[in-house]
């Protein structure tokens, strides 16, 4: 029997001594204990801090706020939810929803060509370039981006300068008189607010669409062409249905992020609160946490419905 040169045979299995090996053996035999050890810290954190907070919020939405003493008492009531149905609050919810909807549609329209080009035509270094070029603005500071738009939209700023140079100032002024769009200037108009929202959430739309298109095999389009479909036909009948879950996935972000935002409505656009502003004002200056809490239930419910529909449309496979 030959042995490996220079080494004595055999080396019988000799267990490594020490505490570490003992512990390792215990964890090996009791894999449930091992799992439990891994899970306990995160579960404590999320259960205690996060779910606990959400639960306390939910409970407090039933508390009573006294308008005279400005104090909260733990007497359970439906009053806060009934107040949601007030006409004023109704307006707030509708205003927020219609903005979220418009921003989502605009993001999809603007984002699709970028995503399509990225996934289908950009190759080699261009692919990386496009990816970074979309990712960097996405990760860039939210408040800085919002601030930058207040600079851009301001009177005397670059947009006004451009519009003036192109002799389009009358057109802009006419647009600003339109109901639902307008305002006294760009930075106090719904149009301005819509621009900022669309800008800030656009990357969240591009990347899921791009990922969805990327997953459509190239030969599928070739097959469609081979079977006699014209480019527009194969785009409409093959690519679009397969890319649609990506659009829905992106819309979850644009919709839900717009719905919960309260900074941008504060910085750009006309007066008139969004859901987020309402929540912030209620808890802040007024100290009516119960009312604020019941207001947060609105976006939660809307997003819940949205997610259910999105799931049916297959958006979660595209995430």
């Amino acid at each position, binding site marked *: 029997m030959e042995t*490996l040169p220079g080494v004595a*045979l055999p*080396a019988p299995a000799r267990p490594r001594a020490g505490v570490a090996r003992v512990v390792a*053996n215990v964890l090996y035999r009791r894999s449930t204990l091992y799992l439990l050890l891994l899970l306990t810290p995160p579960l404590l954190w999320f259960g205690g801090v996060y779910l606990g907070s959400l639960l306390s919020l939910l409970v407090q939405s039933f508390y009573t706020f006294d308008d005279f003493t400005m104090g909260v008492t733990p007497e359970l009531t439906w009053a806060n939810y009934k107040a949601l149905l007030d006409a004023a609050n109704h307006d707030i919810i509708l205003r927020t929803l219609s903005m979220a909807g418009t921003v989502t549609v605009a993001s999809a329209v603007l984002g699709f060509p970028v995503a399509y080009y990225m996934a289908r035509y950009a190759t080699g270094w261009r692919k990386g370039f496009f990816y970074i070029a979309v990712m960097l603005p996405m990760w860039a500071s939210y408040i800085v981006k919002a601030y930058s738009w207040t600079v851009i939209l301001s009177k005397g700023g670059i947009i006004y300068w451009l519009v003036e140079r192109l002799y389009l100032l009358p057109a802009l002024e006419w647009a600003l008189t339109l109901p639902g769009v307008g305002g006294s200037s760009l930075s106090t108009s719904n149009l301005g607010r819509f621009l900022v929202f669309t800008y800030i959430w656009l990357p969240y739309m591009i990347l899921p669409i791009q990922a969805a298109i990327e997953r459509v095999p190239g030969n599928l389009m070739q097959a469609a062409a081979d079977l006699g479909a014209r480019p527009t036909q194969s785009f409409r009948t093959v690519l679009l249905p397969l890319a649609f879950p990506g659009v829905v996935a992106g819309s979850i972000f644009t919709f839900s992020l717009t719905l919960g935002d309260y900074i941008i409505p504060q910085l750009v656009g006309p007066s008139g609160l969004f859901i987020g502003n309402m929540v912030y004002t209620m808890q802040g200056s007024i100290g009516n946490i119960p009312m604020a809490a019941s207001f947060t239930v609105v976006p939660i419910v809307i997003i819940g419905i949205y997610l259910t529909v999105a799931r049916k449309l297959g958006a979660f496979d595209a995430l």
Partner: protein
Amino acid sequence: MSSIAVELKTVSRHYGAVKAVDGVSLSIQDGEFFSMLGPSGSGKTTCLRLIAGFEQPTSGSLLLHGQEAAGLPPYERDVNTVFQDYALFPHMSVLDNVAYGLMVKGVAKATRHKEAETALELVALGGFGSRRPSQLSGGQRQRVALARALINKPRVLLLDEPLGALDLKLREQMQAELKSLQRRLGITFVYVTHDQGEALSMSDRVAVFSQGRIEQVDTPRNLYTRPKTVFVAGFVGTANVVSGELARRLTGSERPFSVRPEHMRFAMSAEGNRVSVEGRLVEVQYHGASSRYEVRVEGNQVLTLSMLNGEADEASLPRRGDTVRVAWAPEAMVQLESGG
């Protein structure tokens, strides 16, 4: 000295309702080249993983060199494994990969690197130590995996389809090298494969698996000439398994039997001591050295004949569509158990 290296006593591994290994018993001799052969999902790999310790048996007893190993983690067993995908650590050099087993045992760096270099020379990869696994070819990675296992001086080496990812030519070369390595080192090899040719050519004994159970454990020659079950006859080489009414007419019993294609001949008429049956030639396949003839006989059974080309006069051979008589010697018939 002939002791038992690995012994399984009615070992089972169930995953819920799935019985991956179902009451398997076998014993592997020290220094033996033992193969576990079967189609995918037959339980051979699970069996190997039970020996390695990656899985623990649901029930039964597993002895390594006479000591109970069920429940022992892999790192406390004196066996090593060569993985199907080689499982080389991509973040380490080849030398560190090979030296890994010694490192975790606390062997000093200089010593373990020296031994790793020696082990690499053993598999003809001396001087490759500083490379990364990703810089090696498939065959070279395979050798590194082998060296990494052998450096630990295992008394049993487990090989899980180690040649599966290699192309045919390299595979044949590695088969020869593995066999000679095993002879030189005298280590017990437990070799999992789905390739019956590989199992027959390399092994001292082969266990044929089907549906979580062992059909037969035997030498390669016996497996081929004396298959015990219908499954073994069909899986190891090609066999004509005759059963049912035809079997009863030919042998007087409904018990199935098998005849190898090369033991069958065309005959003019029913001759005295030979068994024969009439049918229609439905297919002729040319295979270079030999040709295959498929004959449809009564009961819609198809018998396959294999004849060396040039053995018979070309003109006298039947053509497709001809009515022919197939005959064989009674000794060529092997009675089978019907199960499987």
